[in-house]
């Protein structure tokens, strides 16, 4: 009822689906009516060519072979369907053709595309849709095909039931005795349901006190640190301004000195103890920028820079004076800093309630500028109608998601037809160049350096305050189900249900879902939620690669071997 757990919306929403469709966090690249598949030049001209060899035994649920036609259909559907949520990556493909046989797929790209492993992560079966070029009307009440170990038996507003797919050819055979996989929407009652024994497994977003709520001798909670991270983001505006519904607003954070002073006015250690330690006692402050710890995380940046004196100095340098109320003012005005969060998210509300008085004391006129999740993630954030924003993002294993969010040509404006997701208006030449280069760099070590360069720029420019690598958690009944912990840290979440053990012998495993996809279409807005991906797409759609628990991409049983990549 309350929308606490909608907080993954941006995360799950914009990025989550992307695994299925494209590698990076791209979203609203304009459709650019290029009919990709026919636009290609001769094979010799392609900047990059990838050859996929489909396994001979790979078949759909009706026994028909999976072929190059299904790859072509997938590309068509993603590029041409009305309301397709993301075309990034696919828009660089010039042609998809059969090689030696219809089991060999040759994909040609107009330019180098490093995060290619995210492409063709979920194939659309040509025979299952009426017209590949517009599948917006398909998948009304059921997902009528499968290329995995499960197939859908029924789907409704109440529940989705999967049964083993007996035509499945690969190694992920459903465990003996497991006859049904059931998922039910339980946003309000998941914890009660788990404790009462009516669901066997839940995957809740963590909040302070949830461990106490889950305490039960038959319930085990597993905590992992996956790709989720929370941060505070500052809006620099476009040339220091944004046009909003309320007229033009000047952005105080356009000034780098103000950003730095703001950063230095927050005691992150104290904030961390107050807000995040109750969630997970072993938590540590995130210092990687918009990135989780790992190979792409530069050392020695971000972190707690609390220094009130330095902050005061910076503000004076920027031309601010404290006014009668003790607030920093320029030309007699103490500019408002509008901080947006989604109402109903207890942690973010608490953070505001805790931090705003402290920031006021430090001289910043911060005000809460909150609205519900829909308005926050669909209107204010994309409309850049905020000064400070706080949200969780889910990072896919590949850092390509940084490109649409942090390059200067991806600041949505009238001029570029609202393309891109750089909702902070951050225009940094070094970072933009490094990130774009990284997209075309196939050498892993060089690519890592380029990514790090960009992140270091973010630290220098103080455009965001990373806070916390957010735990991913699964909780399950130890008397009902076993062997569930294998993939809980995966970007694709619990996607190893085939090997879960049904202990109580009723032949079914029940998963309580925190959000329920209202519809089933894999390329339209329907797919724009992580719970859609977890409860539908991941379960049914075969793809070229899948993610692993430690954040890597591996080739699936759909292909004979690692695809052959040729570059020019």
């Amino acid at each position, binding site marked *: *009822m309350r929308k606490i757990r909608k907080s993954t919306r941006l995360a799950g929403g914009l990025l989550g689906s992307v695994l299925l469709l494209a590698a990076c966090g791209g979203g609203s690249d304009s459709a650019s009516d290029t009919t990709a598949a026919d636009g290609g030049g001769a094979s010799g001209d392609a900047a990059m060519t990838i050859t996929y060899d489909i396994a001979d035994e790979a078949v759909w649920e009706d026994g028909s072979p999976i072929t190059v036609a299904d790859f072509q259909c997938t590309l068509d559907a993603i590029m041409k369907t*009305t309301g397709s949520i993301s075309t990034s990556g696919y828009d660089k493909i010039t042609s998809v053709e059969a090689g030696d046989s219809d089991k060999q797929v040759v994909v040609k790209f107009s330019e180098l595309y490093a995060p290619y492993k995210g492409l063709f992560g979920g194939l659309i079966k040509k025979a299952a849709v009426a017209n590949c070029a517009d599948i917006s009307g398909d998948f009304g009440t059921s997902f009528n095909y499968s290329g995995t170990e499960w197939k859908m038996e029924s789907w409704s507003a109440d529940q989705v039931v999967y049964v083993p797919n007996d035509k499945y050819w690969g190694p992920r055979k459903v465990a003996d005795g497991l006859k049904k996989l059931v998922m039910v929407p339980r946003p309000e009652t998941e914890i009660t349901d788990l404790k009462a024994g009516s669901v066997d497994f839940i995957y809740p977003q963590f909040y302070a006190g949830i461990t106490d709520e889950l305490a039960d001798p038959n319930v085990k909670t597993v905590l992992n640190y996956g790709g989720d991270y929370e941060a505070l983001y500052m809006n620099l505006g476009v040339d220091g301004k944004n046009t909003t519904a309320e007229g033009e607003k000047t952005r105080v954070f356009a000034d780098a000195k103000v950003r730095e002073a703001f950063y230095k006015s927050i005691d992150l250690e104290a904030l961390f103890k107050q807000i995040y330690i109750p969630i997970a006692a072993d938590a540590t402050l995130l210092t990687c920028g918009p990135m989780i710890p790992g190979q792409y995380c530069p050392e020695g940046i971000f972190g707690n820079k609390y220094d009130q004196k330095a902050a005061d100095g910076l503000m004076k340098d920027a031309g601010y004076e404290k006014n009668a109320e003790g607030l920093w003012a320029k030309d007699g005005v103490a500019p408002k800093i509008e901080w947006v969060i989604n109402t109903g998210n207890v942690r973010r509300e608490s953070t505001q309630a805790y931090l705003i008085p402290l920031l006021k004391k430090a001289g910043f006129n911060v005000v809460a500028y909150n609205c519900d999740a829909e308005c926050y993630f669909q209107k204010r954030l994309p409309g850049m109608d905020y000064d400070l924003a706080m949200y969780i993002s889910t990072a896919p294993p590949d850092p390509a998601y940084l490109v649409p969010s942090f390059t200067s040509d991806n600041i949505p404006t009238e001029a570029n037809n609202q393309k891109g997701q750089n909702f902070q208006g951050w225009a940094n030449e070094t970072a933009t160049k490094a990130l774009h280069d990284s997209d075309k760099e196939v050498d892993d070590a060089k690519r890592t350096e380029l990514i790090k360069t960009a992140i270091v720029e973010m630290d220098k420019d103080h455009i965001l305050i990373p806070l916390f690598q957010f735990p991913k958690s699964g909780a399950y009944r130890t008397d009902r189900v076993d062997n569930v912990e294998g993939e809980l840290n995966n970007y694709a979440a619990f996607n190893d249900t085939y090997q879960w053990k049904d202990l109580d012998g009723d032949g079914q495993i029940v998963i309580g879902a925190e959000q329920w996809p209202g519809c089933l279409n894999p390329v339209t807005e329907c797919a724009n939620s992580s719970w859609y991906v977890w409860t539908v797409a991941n379960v049914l759609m075969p793809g070229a690669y899948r993610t692993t628990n430690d954040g890597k991409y591996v080739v699936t049983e759909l292909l004979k071997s690692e695809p052959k990549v040729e570059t020019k």
Partner: protein
Amino acid sequence: MLRYALRRAVWLLPTLILVTFLVYVALRLGTDPLASYRRTNIRVSKKKVDEYIAANGLYSGAFGYVRGYFQWLWGFITLDWPRSIKGSREVWPHLKDALANSIRLGLVASMVGILVGNAFGVLAALRPGRLRDTLVNSGALVGLAVPPFVSALLLQLLFAVYWQKWFGYALFPVSGVYPPGHQGFDLFLMIKHMALPVVVVAIQSIAVYSRYMRASLLDVLNSEYMRTARSKGISERRVLVHHALRNALIPVTTLAFLDVGAVVGGLIITEGLFEYPGMGRFFLVAYGNGDFPELMPWMVVIIGSVVTFNLLADIAYAKLDPRIRLG
């Protein structure tokens, strides 16, 4: 009588049109259906947007509202309903399921509320001022003051979580219409799943009906003609059953009609607390998405039911109460 019923029935259609128009305006202003459509269907072509506008009658300007309303109305009457903006699905099948679930839950809860509540009301009214009157009256006030989510939470903890802890099984399930994985119809399971939500709703309606019945019965018992009846030596029991109760039931019947009319609206809070897929949840989801093509039929069903049962309540009142002048 017939004339009265007809006179009232004449109002049915204008009321329906007036109220659906008001709702149409409110939804357009409040949810901005065009923006939600664009949001849910990014990169949508101009042609599709125009089609959407035409199908739903979403023209701008004051005249556009009137014209749009009637265009929408015509489509609605001719069963040419636009598809939902999310997933482009037919609205009726989903709405039908939600409606069936809500009516089932709502009717059972109303029945329990009406029967138990009235019984309490009679008990209280027979001994006004005594202990049981005070108990019923205060109990009703407490019942009204306890928000449904508090009672739901406590019931769930007791019958599901702690029952499971103490006896190894949950007495009543806390969510859904059937156990996960169940398919088909099963009366027993259905009743079991409805038990807790029904109690939560019934707490409130018992409180309302017991107070209403008590007041109504006291009204009758203290009236002149009851005194006359008593003074004629008619036995107290006879007085009660033949005269007092019958008359006291008149306003209660009216209330019951109104309640049943509202049942189709679902019990938004209760349905949410028990993950019950009824009209309440249908509304919340559609409202969250700004799904105009789903919201309007939902509203029409609700308004239709409310208006119809209002009419029935008035007619029933007129028929039952001989004191009402008809004409």
